[in-house]
């Protein structure tokens, strides 16, 4: 399972946050967030105080996984865009670089057309950053040393027991 772990570094994390913040402004959206396909939230921006972003992330990933399953059943590789329309708020979900899920929540102050247009540009930028992360992680694996000390390299039984102490 090691080869597929997602590791986020400070530099790329900042870039990602900048891109999604810009996307939120450009698309006139309320919230923009990024989730990996397993349901882990990567970054979020906008009016997230009132939102349960952890649940949103998990349900989004479940939604995308189910839709992927549907796509395969009819012979498609994936449905790269999902759109849910509500009375006031709408959710636009798209896949970036086949790996990451980009979610945009917007209301009547924006429109599906505008969101689609901005998401396309934002996705290209995000795709490049995730490619960088991938290359960086690969490089570090290949060289056998990490620029960051793994926080878990010397984890002890006591550390783990401490987590479960109430």
């Amino acid at each position: 399972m090691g080869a597929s772990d997602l590791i986020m570094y400070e530099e790329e994390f900042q870039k990602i946050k900048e891109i999604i913040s810009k996307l939120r402004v450009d698309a006139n959206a309320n919230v923009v967030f990024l989730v990996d396909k397993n349901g882990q939230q990567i970054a979020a921006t906008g009016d997230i105080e009132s939102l349960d972003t952890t649940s949103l992330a998990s349900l989004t990933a479940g939604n995308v996984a189910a839709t992927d399953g549907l796509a395969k059943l009819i012979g498609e590789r994936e449905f790269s865009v999902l759109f849910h329309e509500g009375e006031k708020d709408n959710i636009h979900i798209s896949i970036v670089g086949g790996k990451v899920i980009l979610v945009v929540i917007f209301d009547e102050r924006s429109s599906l057309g505008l969101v689609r247009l901005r998401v396309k540009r934002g996705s290209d930028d995000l795709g490049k950053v995730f490619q960088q992360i991938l290359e960086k992680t690969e490089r570090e694996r290949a060289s056998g040393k990490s620029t960051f000390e793994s926080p878990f390299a010397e984890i002890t039984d006591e550390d783990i027991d401490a987590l479960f102490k109430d």
Partner: protein
Amino acid sequence: MSFINYSSREINCKIVYYGPGLCGKTTNLQYIYEKTNPTAKGKLISLATETDRTLFFDFLPLDLGTVRGFKTRFHLYTVPGQVFYDASRKLILKGVDGVVYVADSQEARMDANAESLQNLVSNLQDHGFDLKTIPYVLQLNKRDLPTAVPLEEMLKTLRYKDEPYYEAVAPKGIGVFDTLKACAKQVLLELSKK
């Protein structure tokens, strides 16, 4: 697939509860949810049918505290146990870091246990995982029932490798946290090997 964020100093891991229909996977999560400090847990989400059978998954995010300055967060999922939900079950195993297998101790469910375990092995393989190497804990649930099969017999049928096993009565919480802890421990130790 754990997600390590060096920027926000967080680590997220995924544990999936697997097992045949009505074995008590959701009950495990409900007990953990009830007994966990409100600041350490998120909402328990259950995508269930009108009769409270799991349709897609249950989800419970749990903050366990910090290890070496990293916030450690576990995402607990259950799968739908009923045989015909196999496509959904497979989806949930995506990116799993550790598996808890919940077996139903009733004699009448022994075939279902064995079938579901076999299903776990093959669904894991489809995602490129091997049950022999992935962090794994066996929970023998419903030990309080009069029809419960003796422990040795259950272990003989269901033990897959030298995984830790726990006898449990999930609604009363017996064995529930022991099981979770054993699985979380293996997941964290696995991370330390990388």
